[in-house]
């Protein structure tokens, strides 16, 4: 059976600038800044630094799909392009779509950084490598100290050169931090397992979500309205969607997150599929309006690209610590379906699923993704759109019988209320955030009505039709289940696979539907002697599982802004089995 490959953050050993006699750690691969060639420990590389078109041309095919290209756009002028045999600029013509591309004018940025040191042009430009190294060190959370030391030693005789190089190093690092660059590098990488034959392309999570939302709206037969406000790492969805106007997509960059969700709910009221997206701090701001969407029972998709928290936290780092917020983070009893994507490719289907639930159940739905998924790229088998079932929305447009009230809170057997589009004659009605009468939707404070509506809201969400939980790898029972969700899929899967390879009785259960949970999940989990739940948070899904099923789900937590290493999960498995 083909395996997935997992690779943790690389350690850089820039060849031309390699501190003699220093080792920073065991390197998964190296970047040689001298020639832009890449050596790896035998596998296709993850990152290519292209200091000019020629270097790109020579090396790019060795880069694995979804890998990262860092290009110095300052060197991609007409002459250099021609010299390298490019007819059009590959940084602009889309021919690098298979990979992730970040390009800056590294030459210029370096020149600016070293200006104070009064170097000649040529000497100044030599500092480019250090600028790029600085950026890379930022991306991979490495310390600049040893490099600085080494530069000081190397240029002991020309301290201004040392300082210029250090300035460039620092500038590159600062650039990454200030411009909130990061996460674009697949910090771990999962190949599709098994890679079925077919047409493949690369996709980032943000792109996959955008595509899934467009497809979801189309399957529902609706126009889509996206209200967003930029925030790392969620902005990419706004960017992608703003280019897809021909699919009936309207994007709106609002003045803040509250306006973003408000406009999306307004659009849903008007008959479009409202969508909004943000990350932790912005999602927090949307909580009040989510309550309104729950109360007025309007469809809405809320995408949360999680990042390190609390507060501003670590904007460029990945984390899964908004699950509490997703499931519990609103005033009042305010249930809402929650789905989590496990990878860039999976995000496509999750987005469609979110659209389906939102429109079929007249409810807001939260889709959880994270910084890693949003930015990482992976090969994706292009889906056959003919195989996706449409779920067309039928707006209610029948006028009530003479003298009968309009009942916007009339429901179908799934408990979804009718959706009436403004503009429809004889169905004028008013809705709002105050408790509503179960039929007319008028304000109704009556105790029995509030109880009834509370129960309906909870019942509707609890009754969402989601597939039963399958065992992702292993048996439906036994000694140990490792339960995961979201982007920890890769390391958990690999660790379980390895443990099973060593004959251990351990299975992997990956949960996509966080709320409601799959109907059979409790029974399934009770069939294991032990259950551990690795999460990149302090144990949030664990709370939901223990509450719902009273199973002794034990947390395995990591809150460092870094994904789990396979070895960490393996250690947890060993411990749980001990």
């Amino acid at each position, binding site marked *: 059976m083909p395996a997935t490959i997992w690779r943790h953050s690389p350690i850089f050993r820039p060849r031309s600038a390699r501190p003699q006699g220093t080792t920073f750690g065991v390197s998964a691969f190296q970047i040689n800044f001298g020639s832009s060639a890449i050596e790896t420990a035998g596998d296709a590389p993850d990152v290519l630094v292209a200091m000019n078109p020629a270097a790109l041309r020579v090396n790019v095919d060795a880069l694995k*799909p979804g890998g990262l290209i860092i290009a110095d756009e300052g060197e991609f002028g007409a002459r250099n392009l021609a010299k390298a045999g490019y007819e059009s600029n590959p940084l602009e013509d889309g021919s690098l779509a298979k990979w992730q591309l970040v390009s800056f004018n590294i030459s210029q940025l370096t020149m600016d950084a070293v200006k104070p040191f009064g170097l000649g042009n040529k000497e100044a430009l030599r500092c480019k490598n250090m600028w790029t190294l600085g950026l890379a060190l930022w991306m991979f959370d490495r310390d600049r100290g040893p490099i600085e030391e080494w530069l000081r030693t190397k240029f002991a005789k020309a301290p201004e050169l040392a300082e210029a190089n250090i300035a460039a190093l620092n500038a590159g690092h600062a650039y990454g931090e200030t411009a909130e660059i990061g996460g674009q590098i697949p910090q771990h990488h999962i190949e599709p397992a098994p890679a*079925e034959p*077919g047409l493949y392309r690369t996709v980032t999570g943000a792109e996959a979500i955008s595509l899934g939302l467009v497809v979801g709206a189309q399957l529902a037969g609706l126009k889509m309205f996206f209200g967003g406000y930029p925030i790392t790492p969620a902005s990419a969805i706004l960017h992608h969607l703003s280019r897809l106007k021909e699919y009936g997509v309207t994007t709106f960059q609002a003045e*803040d997150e509250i306006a973003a969700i408000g406009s999306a709910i*307004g659009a849903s009221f008007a008959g479009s599929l409202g969508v909004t997206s943000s990350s932790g701090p912005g999602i927090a701001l949307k909580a009040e309006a989510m309550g*309104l969407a729950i109360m007025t029972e309007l469809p809405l998709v809320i995408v949360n690209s999680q990042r390190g928290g609390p507060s501003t936290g670590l904007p460029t780092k990945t984390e899964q610590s908004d699950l509490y917020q997703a499931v519990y983070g609103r005033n009042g009893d305010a249930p809402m379906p929650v789905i989590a994507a496990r990878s860039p490719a999976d995000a496509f289907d999750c987005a469609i699923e979110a659209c389906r639930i939102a429109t079929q159940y007249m409810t807001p739905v939260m889709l959880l993704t994270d910084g890693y998924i949003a930015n990482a790229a992976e090969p994706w088998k292009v889906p056959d*759109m003919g195989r996706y079932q449409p779920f067309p929305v039928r707006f209610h447009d029948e006028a009530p019988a003479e003298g009968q009230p309009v009942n916007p809170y009339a429901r179908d057997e799934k408990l979804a209320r009718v959706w009436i589009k403004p503009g429809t004659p004889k169905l004028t009605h008013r809705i709002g955030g105050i408790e509503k009468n179960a039929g007319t939707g008028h304000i109704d404070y009556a105790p029995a009505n509030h109880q009834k509506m509370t129960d309906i809201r909870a019942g509707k969400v609890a009754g969402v039709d989601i597939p039963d939980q399958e065992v992702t790898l292993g048996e439906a029972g036994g000694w140990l289940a490792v339960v995961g969700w979201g982007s920890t899929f890769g390391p958990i899967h690999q660790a379980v696979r390895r443990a099973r390879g060593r004959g251990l009785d351990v299975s992997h259960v990956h949960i996509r539907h966080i709320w409601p949970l799959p109907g059979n999940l409790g029974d399934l989990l009770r069939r294991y002697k032990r259950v551990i739940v690795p999460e990149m948070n302090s144990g949030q899904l664990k709370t939901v599982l223990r509450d719902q099923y009273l199973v002794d789900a034990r947390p395995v937590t990591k809150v460092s802004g870094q994904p789990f290493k396979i070895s960490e999960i393996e250690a947890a498995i060993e411990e749980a089995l001990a």
Partner: protein
Amino acid sequence: MNEMTKLTAKDFATDQEVRWCPGCGDYAVLKAVQRTMPELGVRPENVVFVSGIGCSSRFPYYMETYGFHTIHGRAPTFATGIKLANPELDVWIITGDGDALSIGGNHTMHILRRNLDCQILLFNNEIYGLTKGQYSPTSRVGTRSPSTPFGSVDRPASPCAFALGSGARFVARGIDVHKNLPDVFKAAHAHRGASFVEIYQNCIVYNDDVFAPFTAKENAGNQLWLKAGEPMLFAGGTKGIALDRDQLAVKVVEVEGGDWQTAGVLVHDPKNRSVAHMLVEMPLVGFPVALGVVYEDPAPTFESAVVEQNMQASAGKTPNLQALVSKGQSWEVTKEPHAI
């Protein structure tokens, strides 16, 4: 209500019990809006009233149109989504001084800046009615309220000055019980873009008669009703607004025998921003209150620009989901890869 019937105010009234305090100015505004509607030639089903939270924000429940009673301060955001999703709808925002200028000031600013085509009726009673009488951002200095038992100390915001500063292209004022109110609404509706209307509304319970200095019968002479192309006269034509062209400030002048020209009374030009600034900033004491359409200078509307761009960007492109998901460089995998 078929297409042919001429609608009346009643057709725009719901059967819901109106739940304001007896004597509240909101009743008068409601009646004025219901009376105005049939004259606008709109169908109830194409009209949406959107409100925030406050006494005034209950308004949509009483209009037999589509209505959305949203959350405090955010009505403009919902209205923006509604209008962008369906630009055919006739969108009215109902808000209060607290709703629009305290918690909602930012959204008020941005809807005006963007110039979304809609009518914004701000019921200014200079108080928080619904939450029992705390002072609001428009309350005058010294207002004693449950939260300011010793009197408020912060200088009030001027709704119309704020609207102008935010880029509004239509700014008007009215009084809850005044007969001119429907005319103000008609002008607001006729204006394409965001029409900002401040309505002085009496809260009989928590801030009674705060506007009496110009709304009381005996003080009606302090009302300056502006009409485009007409001189700025008030107090029965005995006084007018002229300009001190050196100080660049407006002043009150006496008008003898109707000869306003001699007195130098200004002729109202709603397009003149400078005068608009001065009119809305006139102090309460020694000056009349400018009413009617103070400023109007149309500009392209937000939703039309969005629609236009959506169309242009879509022009000639055929939506094709299969093509969409297949976009970018792709490659074929033909056989099962080697297992690791």
